[in-house]
């Protein structure tokens, strides 16, 4: 009897474990009578540190991690960039993984400045795009597509409030994970989730 219970527990446990290996899909969903329509990243067009135009097509068949920052920020951005650099290093041999950092201070963070920033961080634009563009477009995509808080606030030390979130986006442009980019442990979880997502194919 005890043996049976043990076997049952193991079976239950392992079936739970299998469920854990699928990542959630974030955001509102619709049903069109046939299929479930998931929340996806809206069409966008920005310019990266090498003046290349970056759109949704740049991430076709790629998994990517997105965040929002600005180069002159002293509060959480340096922590975020330290952690994003970890992601960059950890995925160095994964050609299907890319990174996308949006500046939320596009007037100051020009293409040239982002180019220097990426150079100083020691990263290349084939894997990590630092993009700038029209302020309203960046803020809108942050809030409505990536479900991330971003706004200008003169009472803050550096003039902006923004979340330090990293968003994990799958090959169908759906949000599959949200992480605190200032916390090492949360980014450990992100690295694991990237591996899980890669297995989805």
């Amino acid at each position, binding site marked *: 009897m005890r043996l049976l219970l043990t076997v049952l527990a193991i079976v239950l446990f392992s079936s739970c474990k299998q469920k854990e290996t699928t990542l959630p899909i974030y955001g509102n969903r619709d049903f069109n009578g046939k299929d479930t329509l998931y929340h996806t990243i809206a069409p966008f067009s920005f310019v990266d540190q090498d003046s290349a135009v970056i759109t949704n097509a740049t991430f076709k068949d790629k998994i990517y991690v997105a965040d929002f920052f600005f*180069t*002159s920020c*002293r*509060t*959480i951005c*340096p*922590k975020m*960039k*330290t952690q994003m*650099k970890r992601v960059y290093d950890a995925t160095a041999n994964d050609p299907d993984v890319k990174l996308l950092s949006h500046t939320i201070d596009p007037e100051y963070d020009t293409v040239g400045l982002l180019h*220097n*920033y990426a*150079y*100083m*961080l*020691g990263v290349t634009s084939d894997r990590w795009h630092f993009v700038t563009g029209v302020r309203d477009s960046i803020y809108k995509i942050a809030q409505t597509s990536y479900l991330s808080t971003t706004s200008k606030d003169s009472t803050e030390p550096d003039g902006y409030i923004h979340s330090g979130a990293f968003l994990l986006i799958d090959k169908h442009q759906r949000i599959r994970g949200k992480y605190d980019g200032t916390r090492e442990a949360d980014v450990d979880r992100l690295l694991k989730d990237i591996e899980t997502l890669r297995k989805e194919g």
Partner: protein
Amino acid sequence: MRSLIFVAAVIIIIISCRSKADVEFDQYYNQGEILYTSYCANCHQKDGSGLALLYPPLNKSDFMDNNLEQVLCIMRSGKTTPTVVNGKTFVQPMRGVAALTDLDIAEIATYIYNTWDHKRGIITVNEVTGKMKSCE
């Protein structure tokens, strides 16, 4: 029982051996660590290693070794000119923290100059006040 007495004796000796200077050093150092964590570690990192060519390292730094006065000034006033550290040039400007008092700066300096590879000893508030007069 005997070993307990021995341990107690050792502890008493250690405590009584600690001079006023040691206690003062500890106060500076511990407060410096707290200030370092909130004002400096975001960029220079908790372990002082910096980040690539964006933020220079402090754990091993010939610039720190040779430029104590400048380091004190930079904490409050920032730095916009390039800085060469261990042969590498860092151009990203650093903004100072204007709110730091001379005592805060002395405590941070005591912390960073006595952690990692550094063993300079205490940097007192009087020393800082004197040196800060030469800041540009």
